[in-house]
């Protein structure tokens, strides 16, 4: 299994992201619940990249800690960035018209979550789920 980069520039790309992430979690032998959690988190973050970041890319990496394998997804955009990261991670906070569960919800569905962002310099959200 090789690493790959997928574009996130349209609604259809978000669907493609879900399908690729599903295929990767199946290859890794994730349980159905774990597959569903990772795909759902990917869907939330891909939508954020599209809506708030103005589009971007997803890097898909297979990671190996020596004792276990996992899937790492990095959502990268060159959009306006996030001014207040703590606020953005609060349940129910939204700068758009969503439910405000995208970031905070995705964080609950994965094992590791990292958010780097600076106003004007884009956003990178990295999530990892171990088998």
């Amino acid at each position, binding site marked *: 299994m090789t690493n790959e980069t997928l574009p996130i520039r349209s609604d259809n790309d978000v669907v493609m992201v*879900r399908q690729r992430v599903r295929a990767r979690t199946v290859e890794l032998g994730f349980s159905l619940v774990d597959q569903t959690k990772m795909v759902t988190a990917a869907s939330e973050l891909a939508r954020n990249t599209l809506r708030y970041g103005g589009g971007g890319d997803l890097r898909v990496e297979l990671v190996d800690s020596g004792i276990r394998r996992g899937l790492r997804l990095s959502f990268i955009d060159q959009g306006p960035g996030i001014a207040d990261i703590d606020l953005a991670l609060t*349940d129910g906070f939204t700068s758009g018209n969503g439910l405000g569960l995208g970031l905070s*919800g995705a964080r609950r*569905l994965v094992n590791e979550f990292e958010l780097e962002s600076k106003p004007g310099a884009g956003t990178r959200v990295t999530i990892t789920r171990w088998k």
Partner: protein
Amino acid sequence: MERIPILRMGDSLLVTIQVDMHDRLAMTLQDDLTTAISRNRSKGVLIDISALEIVDSFIGRVLANIAAMSRVLDAETVVVGMQPAVAITLVELGLSLPGVRTALNVERGIAMLSALSTPVMPENLLDDE
């Protein structure tokens, strides 16, 4: 343009979602259903999501909107067939679909809709709200 078909079944509407919907398609379904409820004077809407492999916050919101809009139009919505893995993920995501009635499968959903459309007694009307 791609659309999710809406079937008429007596005074109810039946929708079976069989594709991985992109966001615009989900919004189109929301609009089409609202129009169909009003045009057909439907009393119930049954949405079968057994083929859906995930429900994220966007699809969750669309389902909640459909339930709310149909209620305003005097119809009830029942969402049926949610896969267990989807239900587990949805709750962990933080979504509990408030205001959305659910049933395990189509059969139970139809039973729920017909129970809901049975004429209510006056005292029940007073209890409402």
